[in-house]
Each structure stands twice: as structure tokens, then as C-alpha cells.
């Protein structure tokens, strides 16, 4: 299993085959705008927004280009209490929108330091908590490997 991170030289945890710095990926796009169709149009884009709020058009563009929405564990770690619950809720809604539009989704830590890293078991549990099926989990792992190469 691969993991996207935001810093280099971090140690690999159990079950993680490789840590890939997001800055090294030409198709990784981070955006704050909900209507980020331009970023979504990039072929095989890995689209990430910490707010998890996108227009339906962005999801459709992402699906057309064979890209995927990035779900980051660091967004959950960065919040506490009620704010954390809201982030998880937004992620569930974004996942439902991905299913509806047919675009892919990938899971990673986007860790900035060692404290933000999580092992494969914890990432899989993160996927399960958001409501992914076994099939979706498998597809998500394969899609990340495909889009990173």
C-alpha cells in the first residue's frame, strides 16, 4: 500500500510499501475553491481540498479525466471534538458524491511529520469508518498505485 505525504525522509510504518511526497507528483492538485473544474480536468488528477466541498461539476470532470479525490487522515488529526465530527461528516458526503459521479477516491495521511504517519491497518480502518466496502478499499489502493506511477 502506498501513502502520500507532504514531507520527505519520513519512516515507513507497518504495511506501507512506499511514502510518496505529494510535491513530486505532477498530477497532485491542492485547492481551496469548491468549483475547481480546471484542476479536475487534468488527466489522472489527484484532487485534494481540506474543506471537502466541491461542485458536482468538479466531480464529473474528475470522473471524465480518470482522476481521484484525495482523503487525508491529517485533516481528521488536525481537529478535535465537534470540529473533527464535522470533518468526518464532510468526508462521508464527499465519498457519496464520488460514488454518484463515478470518480475515484484514494486515502493517505498527507503527513507533514512523523507524528502524522499512520500504518496500513489504520488507513484501512479509516476507509471502513467512512463507509467503504471491501471492493472499494481494494480499488482505492490500486487506483493510488496507478495514479502515482
Amino acid at each position, binding site marked *: 500500500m502506498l501513502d502520500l505525504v507532504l514531507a520527505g525522509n519520513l519512516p515507513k510504518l*507497518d504495511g506501507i510499501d512506499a511514502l510518496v511526497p505529494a510535491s513530486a507528483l505532477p498530477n497532485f492538485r491542492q485547492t481551496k475553491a469548491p468549483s475547481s473544474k480546471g484542476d479536475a480536468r487534468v488527466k489522472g488528477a489527484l484532487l485534494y481540498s481540506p474543506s471537502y466541498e466541491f461542485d458536482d461539476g468538479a466531480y464529473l470532470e474528475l470522473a471524465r479525466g480518470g482522476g481521484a479525490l484525495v482523503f487525508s*487522515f491529517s485533516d*481528521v*488529526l488536525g481537529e478535535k471534538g465537534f470540529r473533527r465530527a464535522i470533518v468526518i461528516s464532510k468526508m462521508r458526503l464527499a465519498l457519496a458524491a464520488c460514488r454518484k459521479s463515478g470518480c475515484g477516491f484514494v486515502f493517505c495521511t498527507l503527513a507533514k511529520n512523523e507524528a502524522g504517519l*499512520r500504518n496500513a*491497518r*489504520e488507513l484501512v*480502518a*479509516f476507509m471502513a*469508518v467512512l463507509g467503504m466496502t471491501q471492493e472499494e478499499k481494494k480499488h482505492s489502493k490500486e487506483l493510488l498505485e496507478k495514479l502515482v506511477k
Partner: protein
Amino acid sequence: MKPTARFKKRYVSFALSVDSAPPPAGEARSIVHEHFLSFFGESGVSSLAFKLIKYDEKSGRGMVRCERSRADETIFCMACLSEWKGKKARMESLSTSGTIRRV
């Protein structure tokens, strides 16, 4: 109660550290209990069949029990621990099993 009517259990082992060192048993117990209570709430913990089975303060390793269908939520809850009283904390899940002996 019939065995089939009881909770189906899973045991999840973990490694706990606060500021990169294993905390003493009393502190570890309160970290685990308060974190699970904060994450699941009183109703959630009651339906989770949660129990801290054991904790070794030398190695920082321990084990919790949970309901089988909610093992993923338990692991996710552990992974969400990042801070304890202003110090960096980490509760890393190590393995899951249906029996204490095999964890």
C-alpha cells in the same frame, strides 16, 4: 445467557506512547478510557463492549476488547489519538484477533 447471544468479541493490541515514552499504568488507563469516551460517547462505549484487558507499562503495549463488527472503528479511534494534556501521544494498533492468546 447463551454463547450465541453474547457480544462477538475482537481483541486489538496496541502500543501507547506519550512524548515517545510508555506512560505508567494509571495514566495509560485514564488516557485510553477518556479517549474512547470522548470518541464514542457513553452510549457508543456501552454498545462497543469495550474493555482495557491489559497494559504493560515497561513496553507500553496493551490490549483492548471490542465488538467484532466495530473493530475498524476501534482501530480508527486509536489512530485519532494525537495529543494528551499538551503532550504528543500515539496509540498505534498492532494486531487484531478473536482470542486473547493469539493477539
